[in-house]
């Protein structure tokens, strides 16, 4: 039985006791899958599993607070669920986690670029077939094959969690680890190589484009403030509505700092950005800092206390300056 069929079977068994099960379904074209909310048995057959399941369905869980729901997750998504459980934003008794081994998802932007290189428009995609290490997209009657390694999402290339860290129903064989240790992050390496003034110019260049749509925030499974985000409130009034680089960058700083010790690098913020602003880099940098300082990684242990909500009398890695 395929992973997808096994998932469907388990979901059908559990569905009577659940308000809904969140997963993925085919989207408006062959290249896109979209979130699916399974409420009846007929919906179960719409479920998809595979390289086009780019969304992180954990983002919807807090909105179901108080109701018993199921969620289908990839390995990376499961870390968001763990983090939400850890922060008591969802209740363990009210969530049933379905999962299967994940072989990685594509980055639609990379696929689009490959198609463009072949003279094709992604909007004409008719069929997508993923076969092991190759993705074949058929558009305007022409099939283009591309190595998965070249179109996979950045996070998949460095994936340490191809299998869910927490699941109630894990089906099929676990997916193999991509590599023993994650390769150095290319985004961080690029930023590290810049001088401090260059980085300021870098953010100036990118934040200039920001349209303050807050898609990055809305896609973030850890942004649970939702309607009460301090970016848009008067009490407290952290940001003005001025369309300036400083205000826009400040929002990214707010988002990143609020995620310090919480972000699982699911990458939804950057994927959702309509202006292709590399906002994930800020969170990656903070995660590296948190890891260096406190040897901590978010979203792997429900019982862990996040590093910024605790302290040690003598810190191991903080060297204070002398005067």
């Amino acid at each position, binding site marked *: 039985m395929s992973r997808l069929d096994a998932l469907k079977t388990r979901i059908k068994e559990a569905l009577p006791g659940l308000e809904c099960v969140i997963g993925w379904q085919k989207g408006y074209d062959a290249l896109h899958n979209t979130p699916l909310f399974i409420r009846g048995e007929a919906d179960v057959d719409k479920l998809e599993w595979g390289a086009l399941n780019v969304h992180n369905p954990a983002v919807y869980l807090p909105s179901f607070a108080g109701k018993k729901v199921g969620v289908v997750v990839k390995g990376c998504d499961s870390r968001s669920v763990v983090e939400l459980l850890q922060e008591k934003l969802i209740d363990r008794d009210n969530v049933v986690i379905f999962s299967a081994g994940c072989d990685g998802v594509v980055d639609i932007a990379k696929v689009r670029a490959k198609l463009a290189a072949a003279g094709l428009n992604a909007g004409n995609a008719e069929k997508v077939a993923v076969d092991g290490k190759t993705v074949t997209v058929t558009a305007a009657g022409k099939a283009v094959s591309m190595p998965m390694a070249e179109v996979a999402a950045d996070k998949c290339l460095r994936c340490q969690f191809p299998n869910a860290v927490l699941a109630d129903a894990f089906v099929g064989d676990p997916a193999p680890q991509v590599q023993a240790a994650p390769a150095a992050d290319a985004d961080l390496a690029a930023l590290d190589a810049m001088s401090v003034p260059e980085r300021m110019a870098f953010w100036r260049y990118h934040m200039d484009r920001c349209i303050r749509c807050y898609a990055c925030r809305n896609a973030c499974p850890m942004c649970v*403030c939702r309607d009460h985000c301090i970016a848009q409130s008067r009490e407290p009034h952290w940001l003005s509505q001025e369309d300036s680089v400083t205000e826009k960058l400040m929002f990214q700083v707010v988002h990143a700092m609020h995620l310090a010790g919480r972000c699982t690098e699911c990458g939804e913020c950057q994927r959702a950005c309509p202006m292709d602003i590399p906002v994930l880099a800020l969170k990656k940098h903070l995660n590296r800092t948190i890891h260096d300082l406190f040897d901590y990684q978010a979203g792997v242990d429900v019982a862990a*206390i996040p590093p910024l909500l605790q302290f040690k009398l003598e810190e191991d890695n903080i060297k204070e300056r002398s005067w």
Partner: protein
Amino acid sequence: MAEKIGVYIDESSVAPLLNAEELAAYVKEKCGGACPIVKAHKRLSSPDGVAMIKADVDAGELDAVLICGTSPRVDWDVFTFGDKVLVDRVNLREFVTLSYKNPDGSSVAAGGPIPAELRSMVQDYLRMGVVKMQKMNRPNPELPETNRTILVLGGGFTGMNAALAAAGAGAEVILVEKSDKLGGRAAGLYKTFPMNYPYLEATDTGIDRLIGLVTGNSRIKVRLNTTLKLLAGAPAMYEATLASGGNEEKVPVGSVVLAAGWTPMETEALAPFGYGKFKNVVTSAEFEAMVKAGDIKRPSDGKEPKTVVFIQCVGSRDKSLDRPYCSGFCCMYTAKQAILTKDHIPDSQSYVFYMDIRSPGKMYDEFTRRAMEEYGARYIRGRVAMVYPKDGKMIVRGADTLAGTQVEVEADLVVLAAGAEAAKGAPQLAEKLRISYDKYGFFMESHPKLKPVETNTAGVYLAGSCQGPKDIPQSVGQGSAAAAKVLALFSKDMLESDPQISRVDIKRCVGCGKCIMTCPFKAIKEVEFRGQKKAEVIETVCQGCGICTSTCPQGAIQLSHFTDNQILAEVNALCQS
């Protein structure tokens, strides 16, 4: 939100560097719309200054009062005008006029042009004060429970007097003493120099009677073998952690009186005089114990000493030992000990080596004269160069600077008037209470003339020798003064002004409980509100640190007086200039 702010500028804080009227004109020009009343006054903390502000408040013209002058850590209990108006402070004294020097290190010439740096500094602080006040929320009429118990630290003469004075006025007192008995240094004294009419004879210290009064007073709870481990909170809402043996106990208290006392010097200062090497060189405390036991003997052979040499200023007024201060009471107790020696051993002769005789108290000089004139003690003005043994005697060799000669005295016993030092652990205690102390470990008062028993930690007072060496009458006076200050604090309605506590905006709270995790006081609890989890502040437990406010990502829990918007207003005032 304050919209009608009365701004008051304290001339005594800004003069002579700055002109209070000019500052008032600046505030009117820049912030006049928000500040209908801007006034300067010679001294705002004076009764006249407070009355002036109160009149404006009573006229209903204002919803907020901004006091621009001394640090908010000073006079914090003076500027209270009930719950109709908000009060905040701008620190122009400590942060501007006192600390300002020209960039080249020179002082500002009074009456000369005001340097641009100074002008910029004072104007920034004034604008910051106004914008912060504009964002301050209305006071909350709900009041936390307050506590008016007084914690007295130190069971010596000073502490016991403070405790009795406070208890006599009806206050509940907890008297904490780190040793196993009350009495402090005075308990080791046989007699003290005269403190009552006719000021002729050394008299009983009265310490036993005092201990009896304290232990017999139902309002005073004596805790022996106990120390203060931690003090958290605010006046009328302090929580003291008391440690005794291995046990710790948290006790709610309203204020603290520090009477930690002093300790006699036991250091290397005594060694040059042979102390520790020769048995017949003793400290004045050891000699006092002999007198108290009625048994004055040479430690070497138990014989009654016929010639006793007293050496004053051992470890006092000595820059080479980094003890430049006068210990204050040694002149008097040395005279007393010389007299007592003659009383006990009529055929004895005392010699006193001194630098100056400092006896400025009432009838004190008369007493030292009696030691010389009636008891025949020979006072030699000069320092002792060396003390060494010879043929069973101690040879004390020194200078007589009045006669201009060297003198040598063959003594049976040498008594060193060791100087006073701060009590052991005083700096650590000061750090716990966040009060200032000098390099010798003596605590610093708020102001030597104006606030001699107050500290800059609100609700913490000090008395006695922990501030600097003092004799018994001075210590008693300070103990009573501190008690009076605490009672005055408790008599005010300042406890009814808006407490600095956190409040939850229930609409914004998502019930994640991060504030509950980080609150050091367990002052936040989870409640159910229309089926949703929310945080709720237990107002009587909240101490006002604001850790919750900086923990909450959605800004749903805000510390009053230090809300995000208030701090952001200050940040913006500084960054947009």
